[in-house]
């Protein structure tokens, strides 16, 4: 196994992208999960299907769709670029790709957790005069922390592992958009570079295992607090 500077760059970038993706996606996924769990509205099935889409489509397709939506020639992409937000060929685009690819996983975990919350507890909070937002922040949210953690760690892991949509959307620019999976993939396409690939696979594993262990520890603390031990 050989570790070169490019590998470290890729690791750093992957960590960066995965952290951003997780931080940005969690609130959004929570909102969507809440809507799907608790509201009935016209187009709910469509929203639900849309959330799942990145799971179903080959990642390249998602990448192309992203390019057509957020590319520098697409209206949306131009609008964003005019306010200073560049996505295509930029690490922020990798964040977007990671968010979208991880979204179904995050939403599902959070939705399951929200559906498991006893609405009677929320009713109790309401009768104590807590407005709906406070009920959410102070009752629902703390109770679904395990689901949020599960969603976050899945989103993080997926962000660390995402390849197809990322390389299609933001290409593979070393130090800028070359994430660990892109680097691993590149190494695997070169005869005899398996050693470099293996080293980077290990890095990705360490990153993800770290996130998993951390989330499990947090979840355990929450569970113990509720059990009172």
């Amino acid at each position, binding site marked *: 196994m050989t570790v070169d500077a490019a590998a470290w760059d890729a690791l750093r970038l992957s960590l960066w992208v995965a952290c951003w993706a997780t931080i940005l996606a969690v609130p959004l996924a929570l909102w969507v999960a809440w809507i799907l769990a608790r509201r009935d509205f016209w187009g709910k099935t469509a929203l639900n299907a849309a959330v799942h889409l990145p799971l179903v489509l080959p990642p*390249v397709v998602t990448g*192309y769709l992203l*390019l*057509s939506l957020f*590319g*520098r*020639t697409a209206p949306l992409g131009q609008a964003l670029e005019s306010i200073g937000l560049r996505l*295509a*060929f930029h690490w922020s685009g990798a964040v977007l790709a990671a968010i979208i690819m991880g979204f179904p996983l995050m939403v599902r975990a959070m939705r399951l957790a929200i559906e498991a919350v006893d609405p009677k507890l929320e009713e109790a909070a309401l009768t104590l005069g807590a407005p709906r937002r406070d009920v959410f922040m102070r009752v629902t949210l703390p109770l679904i922390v395990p689901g949020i953690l599960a969603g976050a760690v899945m989103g993080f892991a997926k962000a660390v592992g995402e390849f197809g949509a990322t*390389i*299609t959307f933001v*290409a*593979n*620019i070393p130090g800028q958009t070359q994430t660990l999976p*892109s680097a691993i*993939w*590149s*190494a*695997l*396409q*070169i*005869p*005899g*570079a398996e050693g470099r690939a293996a080293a980077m696979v290990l890095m990705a594993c360490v990153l993800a295992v770290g996130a998993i262990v951390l989330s499990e520890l947090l979840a355990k603390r929450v569970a113990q607090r509720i059990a009172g031990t």
Partner: protein
Amino acid sequence: DQRVTVFAAASLQGALEEIAASYITPVTHSFAGSGTIARQIAAGAPADVVVLASPDWMDWVSDNAPETPLKTANIAGNTLVVVAQAGASPLSDVTQIASRLADGRLAMGHRDAVPAGRYAREWLQSTGQWTLLQDRLAETDNVRAALALVAKAEAPLGIVYATDAQAEARVEDVLTIPTAGHSPIRYPAAALTPAGLDYLSHLQSDAARDILARHGFSKGTP
């Protein structure tokens, strides 16, 4: 089984399917990137013939395949072109690439991982443009993705195979790349079974060469 199974690099897809149609036995293709195919052959893929876009990978196959190929041959060659969106004016030489890019990027296959990207890098290095351009690339996981970037105007310029450029209406060649500037682009094929041996000859037939030529491939140098 009567069928002939061909594992081939994806960039040959259009041409190989046409060639197969004129063969007596039905032919089944499995297209993927060259590296993937090479490893599949090593893992015992049920291929009669393998066609790659990279001589390096063919060497690797020869070393790693469960059984040594019965015969190998280069069935085609290719050339690189610099493309821009349709309607763009031609470049007079390589030094203009940088200015034409402005703040855009030069799309091409990955410099090491994608054969087309490797040839492009060799050419840019031989013309002394590499150091100038290497931070302004948009490297992709296959040539088609690079082509799509130019077609969608995400990148002003791209370096792709002439065959791809010819098939995509939304792009236009703006600079032809001399074959001398990089190692020769060859598509090595290998027959792994007796049935494959026969099909390999078919691939080398005149009819096949015509089809390859129509798709823009050059003659395979031995």
